[in-house]
């Protein structure tokens, strides 16, 4: 009976369910409002609509060859065709799996290393020079050596995405932690905070804005590396579709792939903006 009482403090379990759904609905609404707010606006429409009209009219009137510059209407039709006949959702899914694997590994390694380097001079002096030497090597330059070391399968693709996302997250986290205002640290120490508490409650929160910025840059570079990695190995993913379309002179399909990638990147960045809004609200007004 006790457990029943605990699970239903107000005597009605459905209240929690309704509140939960309400919360999800409210948050989803807030996310969509934030994400689509700038896209669905009169100001943007005044730029987008004329551009789309010009894009549609120029190839149709023969000013530019329609075969090389497919019209927006043709692209919409091709998108639908790829969705139905060419397994586009499967390719998007395959790319997303690779991206999240590589990106998660980057986040789970770069964030703690960045925090440790920013917090501790000993760790910083030992590790920072190595990352400073390796970071300027452009991630695509790692492709040949990665193929030699890991072949052309999933490990190679995940590693390249990891490389793309790792350094922006690492250096932003490091910088954010290192620049923590000493007054906050002194205040916390006055109240007897341990070093672990300082990291958990002061350093990390102070660095959060920069960390999210690093994650956003990491998402963009991770997507770049996703496409590069899919161009080299495997028979699935948007990068593969893009190269295959190029190879078979399907220019409309190439454009669809580019638009899908753009939408994917935009969506992920919007998620991070939403996370920033929720976690580091003090940065939003800046």
């Amino acid at each position, binding site marked *: 009976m006790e457990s029943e009482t605990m699970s239903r403090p107000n005597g009605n379990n459905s209240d929690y369910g309704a509140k939960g759904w309400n919360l999800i609905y409210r948050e989803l609404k807030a996310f969509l409002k934030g994400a689509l707010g700038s896209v669905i606006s009169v100001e943007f429409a005044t730029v987008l609509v004329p551009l789309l009209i010009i894009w549609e009219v120029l190839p149709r009137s023969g000013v530019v060859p329609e075969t090389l510059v497919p019209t927006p209407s043709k692209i919409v039709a091709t998108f639908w065709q790829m969705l139905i006949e060419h397994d586009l959702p499967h390719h998007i899914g395959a790319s997303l799996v690779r991206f999240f694997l590589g990106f998660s590994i980057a986040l789970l390694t770069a964030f703690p290393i960045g925090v440790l380097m920013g917090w501790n001079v000993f760790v910083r002096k030992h590790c920072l020079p190595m990352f400073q030497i390796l970071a300027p090597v452009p991630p695509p330059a790692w492709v040949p050596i990665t193929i030699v070391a890991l072949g052309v399968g999933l490990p190679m693709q995940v590693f390249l995405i990891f490389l793309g996302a790792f350094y922006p997250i690492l250096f932003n986290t490091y910088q954010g932690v290192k620049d923590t205002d000493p007054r906050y640290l002194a205040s916390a120490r006055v109240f007897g905070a341990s070093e672990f508490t300082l990291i958990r409650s002061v350093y990390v929160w102070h660095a959060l804005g920069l960390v999210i910025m690093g994650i956003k840059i990491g998402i963009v570079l991770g997507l770049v590396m996703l496409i590069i990695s899919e161009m080299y190995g495997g028979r699935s993913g948007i990068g593969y579709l893009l190269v295959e379309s190029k190879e078979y*002179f399907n220019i409309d399909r190439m454009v669809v792939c580019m638009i899908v990638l753009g939408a994917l990147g935009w969506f992920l960045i919007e998620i991070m903006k939403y996370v920033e809004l929720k976690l580091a609200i003090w940065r939003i007004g800046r």
Partner: protein
Amino acid sequence: MGQVMAAWVIVRRPAVVAGLLITLLVLGGCFRSDSGKSPGTQATRPLRVAYIGSPMAAPLFVAAASRGGADRQPLDLLQFKTSGDAGYALLWGEVDAALIEPLKTPNLLQTSKFPPLKVAGTIQFPYGATLVLRKDLSLRFGELAGRTVAAEGEDCGLWHQFKTDARRLGLDPERIRTVYMPFEDMVPSLEAKTVDAILTKGSYGVIGESLGHKILYQNWDVAAGTDECCPAILAQTVYFLVVRRLDDETVARLVQTLEATGQEKLDEVRGIVSKQTGISEKRLAHFPVATFSAVTDELGSLLKDHAWSPRQ
């Protein structure tokens, strides 16, 4: 008065002047690039031909190496990684002709309305069922059970022939995992390690072996074009020779030059191919040699306006 106006425009409206200059530069560039590609100049210079480095380009190698004969068309060969890249080079006028794989050619021909692209001939190679094993694997024919093999299609004649031969050699073909893909995608899949072996046409077998993969099985006694997966007209076609904005006389000379390579001695052809591809003559001696063929009436009727013929 005019000079005063001009000075006023330059001083007071620098953006207008800059815009005019840019327009002039762009127009100048257009005219310059256009004049460089005028059809009249092509007879006097070597034709730039795009190809992918494989023994299948043998007629091109021989034609380029040949010195004799005033009626021969000199060729300047440019190697590309894929026939897609070669196709784009052709579209933008960086080359005058390119070898393009059959499945890719229809889209390429549709892509360019002006200048129109034309098929001037084909590279032919005997059909033959060939099983190519990935270079990092060391398997015998009987050990293919459980491995992934790429085939063109379930109803493909090559696949039926392979199954018959496999049973005869003691391998149950039902125990092989099969994935289906076009012939054009098989060697890249082998390189990408997404399959363990490919069952392909003789031509792709040679291309695969030239990349270091191993041929495990080969049967040349497969009749070409008896199935839907590879119609007779395309069965032995490895590449189409696609030309761009060339006058009839130049194309005729090019076709004649390439057809003449079929009369060269096989050893000499293999020597030239070996020099161009780095594959030893001894290895090339195991295979037939690719030959060039002009557009036949049958192919011409299939390609319609996109086929080049001497009658044009």
